[in-house]
């Protein structure tokens, strides 16, 4: 994604990297989710990206993103899997019919994902979920030069965790553990950071 635009080939490379990174982070994410929920988040993320990375991707970037959505739907029906699938689907709609998407549209794709995920999960910004990470990443990407985008995204995802330290989760299973969840990172936000880090690390 350091180029001025990204195509299906670039998406494929990115998925490989994230699949590797997610695999490596799975135990950490399971543990984070286990402290507040059912402990399946690492499985969800690693299986989802492994499935997406293994999928044959059409040249149409929109259809390629749709394949990613389907991959997540196939392997996980946990909240995060469904949300990620929803996000990919929304981005797919925007990208449909094109064989490359300019770098300066990436923020719009992420914003579309964020909005669709908010609609799907009936969540609000500030609830301490992955939605907050997406929102900050959108802001961070706006106006960033193509070669700085990955770095900006990672920084935004990291800032999100810092910003929500001490606040309770207000959505999902973690909502039940107000006190405990305030002291801990939201597992979904943490997962998003690990995803972006593995994307950046490989490049």
């Amino acid at each position, binding site marked *: 994604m350091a180029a001025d635009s990204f195509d299906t080939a670039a998406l494929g490379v990115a998925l490989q990297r994230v699949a590797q990174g997610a695999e490596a982070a799975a135990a950490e994410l399971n543990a984070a989710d286990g402290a507040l929920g059912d402990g399946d988040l690492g499985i969800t993320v690693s299986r989802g990206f492994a499935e997406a990375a293994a999928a044959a991707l059409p040249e149409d970037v929109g259809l390629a993103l749709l394949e990613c959505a389907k991959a997540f739907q196939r392997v996980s*029906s*946990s909240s995060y899997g*469904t949300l990620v699938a929803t996000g990919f689907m929304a981005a797919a709609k925007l990208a449909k019919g094109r064989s490359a998407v300019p770098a300066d549209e990436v923020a719009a794709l992420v914003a579309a994902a964020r909005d669709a995920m908010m609609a*799907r999960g009936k969540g609000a910004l500030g609830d301490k979920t992955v939605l907050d990470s997406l929102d900050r990443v959108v802001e961070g990407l706006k106006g960033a030069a193509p070669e700085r985008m990955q770095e900006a995204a990672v920084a935004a995802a990291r800032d999100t965790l810092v910003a929500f330290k001490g606040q309770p989760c207000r959505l999902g299973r973690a909502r039940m553990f107000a006190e405990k969840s305030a002291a801990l990172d939201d597992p979904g936000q943490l997962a998003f950071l690990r995803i972006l880090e593995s994307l950046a690390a490989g490049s």
Partner: protein
Amino acid sequence: MKKILNAPSAYVDEMLEGFTAAHPEYYRQPEPRVIARAGGATAGKVGIVTGGGSGHLPIFTGYVGPGFLDACAIGDVFASPSAEQMASAIRQADGGAGVLRLYGNYGGDVMNFDMAGEMVDMENDIATTTVLLADDVVSAPKAEAAKRRGVAGMVYAFKIAGAAAETKADLAEVTRVAQKAADACRSIGMALSPCVVPQAGKPTFTLGEDEMEMGMGIHGEPGIWRDKLKPADAITDEMVDRLVDDLPLERGARVSVLVNSLGATPLEELYIMYRRVKARFDGMGVSIVMPLVGRYATSMEMTGATLTMIALDDELERHLRAPAACAYWQVA
């Protein structure tokens, strides 16, 4: 907390295989993780689907049958089925009059059922509505009742909505009755010991040797207090109090109540609790119609019990008493 199984990953599929083999007069598995009525959808009748994680038998899929539900999507233990499986269940339930999605208010299930609704709307032109069960009074304060999770009250909603659908009422009407039943239900649970999710292989929570947790959810979600195990009457009193606090009843009111084991707690102890429930409602001048005592909504081998009450009017009582049959509950 020891389990009889082969591979943990095969737990749900082998269970469903045995389930349909044992009760072919009620159930059929037209595709993996989707159970439909043996006789298929009824033309002209509103279909009712539910779905949710495994590990709660007879909930969810056990209540497919005449007078109850039409189809069910089945997830892994304590995990949502996929949107695709839910969409299949909706298609199986469709008799041309639309389909009601009637299930428990859990985040993952809601997202997937919403997605499934969009799928069948686009692909199959099936009109769907949603009624969420949110009967657990402990899971959120009354002001945020819409955030409450659904527990054993589902059983009443399945029965009553199923009876309404059998009358060939239209989708809006079945949805209205289902929502009315859901709104009339209140539940509370208490747990004494956990269960083991096969793929996790370890207990869902821990409690001291003589501790109990009042208000705990069916997956081990936290309750109101954790303390030394109390006598049955004291436990039952607190449960009754919390329910009627949340939904006050007048003298002369009618309710049905469900005293439900989470799994390991034996019938004997449910009857000890029911004895007290009966005395309490007698004392309030409230009569109990068709009480249910048994294992209607479980968490595998968890020890503990839930108490559900549904306030009845003539309409709800009529539907509750209407004929219905599944492998676990028959009303003649």
